């Protein structure tokens, strides 16, 4: 983990209220694993004060790619940043995903901006067969995975309002899939809004499918000192709370207390 100034190589919208940014940093590009994140200081000074956490969505040569949704003060400022400007970035941080075994079929389930870390996973498994389910609120918010799609990757799309793909939640797609493929060894990866993650976790545990989830939390430091990013641990854990920045952001579904999650 290092704190460094990185050069913004590109910063542009890819969907409604959703942007993609490339940051040049050979060290970040070499060290970051799928599931890890960085803490970005969007503007120097004290307002906004804290850095913001972002999953790394991919690595392209010496560039670290961030996908972000505009949800508040910090991310709005990010949309004004130009190529050539420099950004203070701390990372790579956190525990990334464990890659699936050779015999396992990876199944990725994403909701909205939750696609961000899962694009990195898909890219790392580019040559393998892979099932990618993604859900968005409406068609204009769909983040097209064109640059992240491998030749054997199967994509299923859902929109809450039915403007494209399956009309409904992405989690509608999962149980039928798990049921249909129960003879296979599956490895689930999930990221998205809390209710979505919880539903995936419940389905995974019902079908006894190994499942890793990437969680998010408000963070002040991102590297394990402020203790702000607590999430309630399940009874199998040795502690009452896990810390999303240190023990996560990737967790096994069995280590979270889902009844206290949301």
């Amino acid at each position: 983990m290092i704190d460094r100034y990185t050069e913004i190589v590109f910063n542009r919208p890819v969907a409604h209220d959703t942007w993609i940014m490339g940051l040049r940093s050979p060290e970040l590009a070499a060290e970051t694993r799928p599931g890890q994140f960085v803490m970005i200081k969007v503007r120097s000074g004290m307002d906004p004060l804290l850095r913001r956490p972002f999953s790394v969505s991919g690595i392209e040569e010496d560039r670290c790619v961030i996908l972000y949704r505009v949800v508040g003060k910090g991310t709005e400022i990010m949309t004004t940043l130009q190529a050539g400007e420099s950004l203070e970035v701390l990372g790579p941080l956190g525990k990334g995903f464990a890659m699936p075994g050779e015999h396992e079929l990876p199944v990725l389930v994403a909701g909205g901006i939750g696609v961000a870390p899962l694009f990195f996973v898909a890219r790392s498994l580019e040559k393998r067969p892979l099932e990618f389910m993604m859900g968005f609120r409406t068609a204009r918010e769909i983040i097209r995975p064109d640059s992240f799609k491998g030749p054997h990757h199967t994509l299923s799309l859902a929109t809450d309002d039915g403007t494209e793909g399956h009309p409904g939640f992405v989690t509608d797609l999962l149980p039928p899939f798990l049921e249909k493929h129960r003879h296979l060894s599956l490895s689930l990866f999930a990221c998205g809004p809390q209710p979505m993650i919880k539903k995936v976790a419940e389905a995974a545990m019902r079908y006894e499918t190994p499942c890793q989830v990437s969680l998010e939390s408000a963070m002040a430091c991102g590297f394990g000192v402020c203790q702000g990013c607590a999430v309630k641990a399940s009874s199998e854990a040795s502690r009452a709370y896990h810390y999303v920045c240190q023990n996560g952001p990737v967790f096994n579904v069995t280590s979270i207390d889902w009844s206290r999650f949301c």
Partner: protein
Amino acid sequence: MSAWIPDLTTRLGPLELKNPVMTASGTFGYGLEYESLMDLNRLGGIVVKGLSLKPMAGNPPPRIVETACGMLNAIGLANIGIEAFLSDKLPELRQINTKVVANIYGHHIDEYGELAAALKGVEGVHALEVNVSCPNVDCGGMAFGIDPAIAASVTERVVRNTDKPVIVKLSPNVTDIKLVAKAVEGAGADIISLINTLTGMAVDVETRTPKLANVVGGLSGPAIKPVALHMVYQVARTVKIPVIGMGGIMDVRDALEFLIVGARAVEIGTANFVKPGASLEVVEGMARYCADHGIKHIGEIVGSLRSVIGKQ
């Protein structure tokens, strides 16, 4: 013109630091988390996360929320407990060439005494910092540090049970901090540090719920600096023992303000989250300031606030 290297050594009564810059409890873990990010040997001191007799898990989330130029925290004093600190953290901390201050707090006054006793004679811990801003379970959860007499009792209990310099860290959430300061000085405190966080809250207008699960939290960051600075000014003019100032220090200019109003040392807190190397930048900045202003020893500016009236 001869060149000199400014002298930053700082004497806080029985505690001597190589420079006036320490890191504040709750913002620097047990120090080791920052090892890869900066040279900890250059710090004046590290105040570790507050230690309780038994490990504490902390509050349910959400525990933090950003506010204008600051943040609210309701971490809930989560810590590994004194035993785990002694066995798992201190051995490595001892390797660092800096002063280590053990911040301690209790739910009952007895616990303060027990914690002090547990650290008695422990090599590698150079001072105790007594947190009196936590709720006193015996007094309906009101903070120990709100009542001067209770703050004095806690101080006296710690002083009685330790062989180390005692720093008492004051809460700003009081009517008159000078009274608390005088009381803890009278009870035997060697040093006073202030301020701890200001009580505050935030609300989510969509859900109409508090943004913190605990409803209230402590405000820190640049937003509190003016309040902290004034309180340090008041306390430094009230007590004879050395004062450590903290509250919203982000850079060297902030730190210098605290020295000028009477603090002999500073603690950097929230700034560490934003810029892990902030405390070292303050050390370097102090040396530069001294060189630029022809100041041979940093102690010369402590309490050097000039009166405006004199200008007329």
